């Protein structure tokens, strides 16, 4: 892989993560602030890995109730059903629109799982100082950042349906407690992705070069 010169961090330059201004910074200066926007400057996000792990583990734990508990209860004159995320998708596939079922499946099942797995992979690889497949790992991180928000889809659907379908004795929809856990998983994985500092992935490469 081509490696153009020394890194900015190696030469004591640090870019501000708010306004992008590059300033010179002493290696261990914790109180330095950006001259333009007064944001605290640091070469790497402090405690990035620990915080990311914390959010990620919390998300893993809540992922279980999010998928097992009831997301939505639907009652009509002739039927009554309780749906988890998965059973809701299956019901939609058979009785609604398969295309929409695929969208919901991707947003509510694939995306959260993908985020959990990818963030774990990234954290472990940074911990081990791995330089393997760095370009692919950067790509994975970008995808995680990009698609994370779309998991919120199911929360919005539940909100709308539970509020709208309230026709006394004919039809009612209620949100289930699975929705709480699911919402928490989405928020926690978004926080985890924000805490992770992708620049950490490049550091082993720099060390290897400077040796």
């Amino acid at each position, binding site marked *: 892989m081509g490696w153009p010169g020394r890194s900015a961090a190696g030469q004591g330059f640090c870019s501000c993560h*708010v*306004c*992008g*201004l590059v300033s010179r910074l002493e290696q261990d200066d914790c109180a330095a602030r950006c001259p*333009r*926007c*007064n*944001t605290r400057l640091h070469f790497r996000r402090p405690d990035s890995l620990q915080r990311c792990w914390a959010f990620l583990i919390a998300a893993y734990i809540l992922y279980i109730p999010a998928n097992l508990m009831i997301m939505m209860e639907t009652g*009509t004159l002739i039927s009554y059903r309780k749906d988890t995320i998965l059973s809701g998708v299956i019901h*939609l596939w058979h*009785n*609604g*629109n398969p295309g*929409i079922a695929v*969208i*919901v499946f991707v*947003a509510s099942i694939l995306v959260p799982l993908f985020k959990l797995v990818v963030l774990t992979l990234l954290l472990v690889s940074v911990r081990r100082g791995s330089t393997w497949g760095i370009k692919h790992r950067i790509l994975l991180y970008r995808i995680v950042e990009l698609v*994370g*928000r*779309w998991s*919120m*889809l*199911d*929360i*919005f*659907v*539940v*909100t*709308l*349906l*539970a*509020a*709208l*379908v*309230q*026709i*006394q004795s*004919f*039809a009612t929809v*209620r*949100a289930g407690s699975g*929705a*709480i856990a699911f*919402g*928490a998983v989405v*928020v926690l994985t*978004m926080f985890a992705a*924000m805490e992770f500092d992708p620049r950490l992935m490049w550091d082993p490469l720099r060390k290897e070069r400077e040796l």
Partner: protein
Amino acid sequence: MNRSLALAVAAAILYLIANSFPILGINLQGNGNAVTLLQAVHELWKQDMPLVSSLTFVTAIFVPALELCLMLYLLVPLNRGHLLPGTSQVMRLLQVIKPWGMIEVFMLGILVSLVKLVQDFKIIPGVALWSFGGLTLLLAALTSSFNPRDIWSHLDLKQRREGL
């Protein structure tokens, strides 16, 4: 930046319309119901779902509104060539809240709800349904036309002028 200002103003107007009218109405044998976004959030709150309700409130109502207000705070004075105090804090706040504004996801949520409802009910699309569609497009256009670097370079100039 002129284009950003125009888009932000249009988005703000559409935002107000989208939040004041019902999104969808349903009808079943003469009984019906219709809700605005705020009513939906309130209804869910009453059903003992404060967390889910707050999450929707923050991501679909509060953050988009805050985002538009902050952008107008920057863009309106910039149109006349100056910046108001607190610009760098506003820019920072914009960056922090950006991921939590989810109008486009909410729009998809409306469509999925529509598909789920269409079998059992007669659907009456509300004014806000179209407004949210328009708002999604305007916000996407605004995001791509708004260039933070323009603001920062204006701020640089201002600081340099004041420094001299």
